[in-house]
């Protein structure tokens, strides 16, 4: 029996945290995340959610509280946006290095300066190298389902997971969402078993200084140096690809919804032109692909769901027949190009995928970008590709440049 409600993305995320029976919540308000911390406060105050809500004085502390509570064995949740996420940066590394299965929603928003409260993905992209798994959602159904999946992924591989969804576009937009039933979620998500030991019964010193080299403990066991310990994080993230696929499959089995494991594809089977992106802009690209097909262009879309770990094998498969590629990104690696574009090019290196690639930077700070504009841009790229354009300049869509 389905329970469909019309809710915002923030409501979906809050419901997911409740369904996952999180035990400690620590969050600090920032637009467009604020509503999420407000809803969780009311869940906790009303007793609907039995959790400790720590109303911290800033985001650095929000993630710190999650780190420590997770270390003692509590399931934790936090959420933020933009400058709040940047303010957490030090602790993002700390959380990953401590291998804690923290789940955080990043309600994507552009970063200052200058200020903007509107959506792009510069905030989460800037956290790419912190050792977090990053999953991107295309609609509110995916938000609720991905948060639930995120806990199972995080607690399997002992890595933190950031569930990213676009501010306002999803966070404040009402959409029908099928709410998973609580018993089903309980069955899907076993209780959290911490790997950390922070207990007076077995005194340990957690996350101390590590030497560059290995060192023996008092029993003669050769223990990791800094680099060995850090390698374990890399290995865990690489292994997480398998877990992300498996958890998505198990979720589809349990709840009947398959959001793609590492990525999702739309009409790519026979597509010559593939549009790619993450989050809601990729969702918008499906509408653009439909328009292009109406015009006789065989277009399809690849939506990257897991940006880290990067779906190298999956994209090699998904793009294998592409004749041209247009990548739409809501962030940029300043001084170069969109990060996703660089990563895709690197994944294609040494393969038979030789399709020309056009990188578009779009929608920064909430700059409007419509499906028909994505379609027009992709069509333009295709025309260029047909004229032999191999490496077009990165294009800032709907922007005064030059």
């Amino acid at each position, binding site marked *: 029996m389905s329970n469909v409600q019309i809710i915002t993305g923030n409501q979906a995320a809050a419901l997911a945290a409740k369904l996952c029976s999180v*035990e*400690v919540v*620590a969050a600090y308000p920032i637009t467009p995340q604020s509503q999420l911390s407000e809803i969780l406060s009311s869940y906790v105050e009303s007793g609907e959610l039995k*959790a*400790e809500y*720590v*109303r*911290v*004085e*800033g985001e*650095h*502390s929000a993630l*710190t*509280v*999650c*780190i*420590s*509570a*997770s*270390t*003692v*064995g*509590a399931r*934790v949740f936090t959420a933020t946006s933009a400058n709040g996420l940047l303010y957490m940066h*030090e*602790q993002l590394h*700390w959380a990953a290095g401590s291998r804690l299965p923290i789940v955080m929603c990043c309600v994507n928003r552009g970063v200052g300066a200058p200020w903007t409260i509107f959506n792009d993905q510069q905030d989460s992209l800037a956290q790419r190298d912190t050792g977090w798994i990053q999953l991107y959602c295309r609609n509110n159904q995916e938000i609720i389902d991905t948060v639930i999946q995120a806990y199972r992924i995080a607690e399997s591989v002992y890595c933190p997971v950031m569930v990213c969804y676009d501010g306002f576009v999803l966070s404040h937009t009402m959409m029908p969402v099928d709410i998973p039933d609580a018993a089903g979620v309980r069955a899907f998500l076993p209780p959290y078993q911490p790997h950390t*030991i*922070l*207990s*007076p019964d*077995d*005194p*340990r*010193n*957690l*996350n*101390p*200084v*590590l*030497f560059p080299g290995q*060192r*023996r*403990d*008092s029993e003669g*066991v050769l*223990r*990791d140096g800094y680099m060995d310990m850090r390698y374990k994080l890399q290995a865990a993230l690489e292994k997480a690809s398998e877990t992300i696929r498996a958890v998505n499959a198990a979720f589809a089995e349990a709840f009947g919804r398959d959001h793609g494991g590492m990525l999702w594809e739309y009409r790519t089977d026979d597509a010559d032109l593939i549009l790619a992106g993450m989050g809601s802009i990729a969702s918008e690209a499906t509408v653009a692909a439909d328009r292009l097909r109406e015009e006789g262009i065989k277009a399809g879309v690849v939506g990257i769901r897991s940006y880290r770990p990067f779906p190298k094998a999956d994209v090699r498969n998904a793009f294998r027949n592409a004749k041209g590629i247009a990548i739409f990104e809501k962030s940029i690696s300043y001084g170069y190009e969109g990060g996703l574009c660089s990563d895709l090019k690197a994944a294609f290196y040494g393969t038979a995928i030789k399709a020309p690639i056009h990188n578009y930077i779009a929608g920064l700070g909430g700059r409007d970008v419509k499906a028909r504009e994505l379609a027009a841009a992709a069509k333009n790229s295709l025309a260029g590709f047909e004229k032999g354009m191999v490496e077009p300049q990165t294009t800032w869509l709907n922007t005064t440049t030059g």
Partner: protein
Amino acid sequence: MPENLFKLNAKEYILPGTRACQGCGLSLGYRYALKALRENTIVTLPACCLCVLHGIYPSTPVMIPCLNNSFASTAASAAGIVAGLQALNKTDTTVMAVAGDGGTFDMGIQALSGAAERGTDFIYLCYDNEGYMNTGTQRSSATPMGAVTTTTPILTKQQHKKDFIKIMDAHDLPYLATVSPSYPIDLYEKFVKAKKIKGTRYIHMYVPCPPGWGFATKDTIKTGKLAVETGVVVLFEIENGKFRFTGRSKTLAERGNRLPVINYLEKQGRFRKMNIEQLNQQQAWVDGKWQEYIRRAEA
């Protein structure tokens, strides 16, 4: 004296062979803090000398569980441990955050003020060696005026020490105390008391630091005592707003026979460049603070 000594918990929680310097005041003070708090305790701490004392992986000399966290995060880290234990119904454990003056007066102040305002149930111990010692004796806002540090190498520190205890007092805490390892029994008793109180308890521990302050390692106890004799350090506790002098400071307050600060300053290399004007300012500053405490005790 022996009778007092026998009241102390005989168990040691720090095994010998630590990385702390010879004559370290922190090592001594921490030794008694842990004796008072006993086994059922969890400590969290940031980068600082104590992080070094807690040892390099895979070994630690400290028999109390400890969570290391980043420099600005100490009190929030404790708040997370408290929240986690609460959520798991393990509420009988004492949680103590410990940080240096740099990790408290400077970078940790936000998280500490936040945790204290929320009434987080933990002990916050600031050990004050009056500088960033772990990183090589740089100035902090706890460094006294006239001290040479590696970032005030020529002109000496120009500002007075931040009155951080006043800031913490403004949080209306159930318990606030100052301690010195030169008076281990006073220190021990305050931790025993703090352990029994609920809410945020702040303990300020002045720790003489031989390499950072420039005195011989044998003189740690004497240096700490001189600080108290001159009123540079005042031993007291504030319980639910009620101030009272303790130990040697109580005697000094009753008898009014503090020594001039020069007796304390002249024995430390860090004050070698202090001029007469700074000395007078320092004396006046200490006198002013002392009068504030006297008024507070009388109120």
